[in-house]
């Protein structure tokens, strides 16, 4: 059995290295819907993939990944909302871990909205 004692070693190793993790106004917020509708359609791995990637790439000062309840668009879950300071919110729909990592790479790091995965693209597609 693994023991929680290992956390003491992690603590000793990280002493002094931990920065302040306060949410700031110039941070980009990435929000994953985690109500019944989101969870049932696969939001958990999407949340984990985004959060892991942000941590691994040391982006947590710029990007915060959090969860929220039902956004009210259940048929489009899993939903990821991107809120950049001073910009309009972008809603990505029917996400998978792979698509979410594409959004991270192209939009959150590269600055280009991945139009094909947005809510408006999905709604326009449905009308045609």
């Amino acid at each position, binding site marked *: 059995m693994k023991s929680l004692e290992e956390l003491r070693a992690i603590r000793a190793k990280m002493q002094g290295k931990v920065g302040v993790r306060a949410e700031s106004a110039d941070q980009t917020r990435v929000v994953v819907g985690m*109500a*019944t509708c989101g969870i049932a359609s696969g939001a958990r791995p999407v949340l984990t993939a985004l959060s892991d990637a942000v941590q691994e790439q040391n982006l947590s000062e710029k990007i915060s990944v959090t969860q929220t*309840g039902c956004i009210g668009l259940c048929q489009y879950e899993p939903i990821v909302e991107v809120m950049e300071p001073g910009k309009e919110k972008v809603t990505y729909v029917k996400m998978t871990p792979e698509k979410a990592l594409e959004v991270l790479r192209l939009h959150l790091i590269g600055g280009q909205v991945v139009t094909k995965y947005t809510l408006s693209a999905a709604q326009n597609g449905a009308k045609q």
Partner: protein
Amino acid sequence: MPEISLNILDVAENSVRARADLIEITVSVKPGEDTLTVIIRDNGCGMTADQAKRAQDPFFTTRTTRIVGLGLPFFKQAAECTGGNFRIDSEKGKGTTVQAVFGLSHIDRMPLGDISSTIHTLVVFNEQIDFKYTYEYGDKSFVLDTREMREMLGDEISFMEPEVSLFIWEYLDTNKKETDGGAEI
């Protein structure tokens, strides 16, 4: 919901929204008794007896974004269709306990699924809440208590730090395998 662990995640999110500061989750597999029992207990805002009864009805929800609430009804139905049972005990201002018993070998029982990832998600993304997770298989068991984790780790270091997050996942995964011997559940 394709797996029991996602029902647990969903019901525990209710506890988060009920402003609980302690959520206790027990998953108990008893092959000898042919049962799989899930208990989710919180010290959140609780419900009146009437609300607790209506919470099992799909056309009741406290949310305002839509008029149906399927979380608890899904869980109830999943348990009852395996010859098991389901109950909610709640007291306004004290908290809520949800218990679901499944028939372990019943053909209609959905798989437990990735319970370690579910608990990991809950613990890491709700750091302000204490969790006590107990996993039992036969007479073996292990516990993850975030209050004990905090004692070892101190208050400064976030569970979201990659090393800590990975440790939590490995702790859950390794100890589950040692508890159930890697049984498919």
